């Protein structure tokens, strides 16, 4: 079991995954998202190669209305 944090919430993964695999659990088009792993932005080109392991902290953000 791999324990990570996504947007402040504890999430358990059945096994280590790539960032791309983790994001498939989020039902938003991938180009609407940006992702930080441990406070570093991971460019989308690297999502398929970036491994997510125990203790990683993810921030998944999108754009919303604002002024």
């Amino acid at each position, binding site marked *: 079991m791999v324990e990570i944090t996504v*947007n*402040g919430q504890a999430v358990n993964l059945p096994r280590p995954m790539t960032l791309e695999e983790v994001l498939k659990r*989020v*039902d*938003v*088009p*991938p*180009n*609407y*998202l*940006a*992702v*930080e792993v441990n*406070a570093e*932005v991971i*460019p*989308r080109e690297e999502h398929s190669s970036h491994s997510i392991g125990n203790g990683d902290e993810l*921030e*998944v*953000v*999108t*754009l*919303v*209305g*604002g*002024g």
Partner: protein
Amino acid sequence: MTAENQSFQPKLSDSPLVVGNHRLSSRLIVGTGRYDTMEQMRASLEQSGSDCVTVAVRRERLYDRNGQNILDFIDLDRYTLLPNTAGCYNAKDAIRAAKLGREILRTLGNPGADWVKLEVLGDSRTLLPDPTETVVACEELVAEGFGVLCYTSDCPVTAQRLKAVGAASVMPAGSPIGSGQGLLNPNNLRIILEYLKEDDPEYPVIVDAGVGTASDVSAAFELGADGVLLNTAIAHARDPIRMSRAMQYAAMAGRDAFLAGRIPRRLYGAASSPSEGVISSRPYGTLGKGDQGNSQSGEG
């Protein structure tokens, strides 16, 4: 029409608003928050005539309560997005938000990927900015290659600091965000405009926040602001779509009035119609001191 009239060519065009690498045809930048519906927002953006809209970076609520994403309601071929760091209370978080916004816009292929509206708040009630954190964040984001449009208070000293560390535009608040109080300290805004443009007349100063109604927008442009950024005054008007159009007209009116140049204020009246040939005698029989040399004809 006389030959003289035919040869008269009015020059009524305006230059674009240039900020960093961007050239905007409209001098109004509008926010996308606080609308009742996405459809209402889309129609309001349309009526504003703006070609640049600002958006916030947020986690958790990936969809709104109706399952919609704002990006499905903004034509990305038409609008340059200006990501903002609204809601951040320190430089570190604002820098993270800016980088996340840049990543989203980069993957969308929107030209707004290279700039950010920096907002670092210092107080949750007034929503006034933290000047120290704002300067720190501005400097670092400039070093990271961002064009930084910096929300700040109407303090002339902070405005100078922000320009000195490389802000692409300094954006003083007219009054607190969302307060609708208009321009509370026009004198400070005048001083900011004077200082920042002293040796650099093209440097863009954008009044950001505090607009309550259309005349506030006109007033900002009449002071010499290069642009106005607003959100709530449109989104929370009784009829946002109509107010958005009013803001477009107010921006055009204020900017034209600034370029045209207002007349000086006088203590006494100055007649617009000729004083010669008047069929009426004047009361009290004498010219007042303020009634000298006012025989020019005019529209009045």
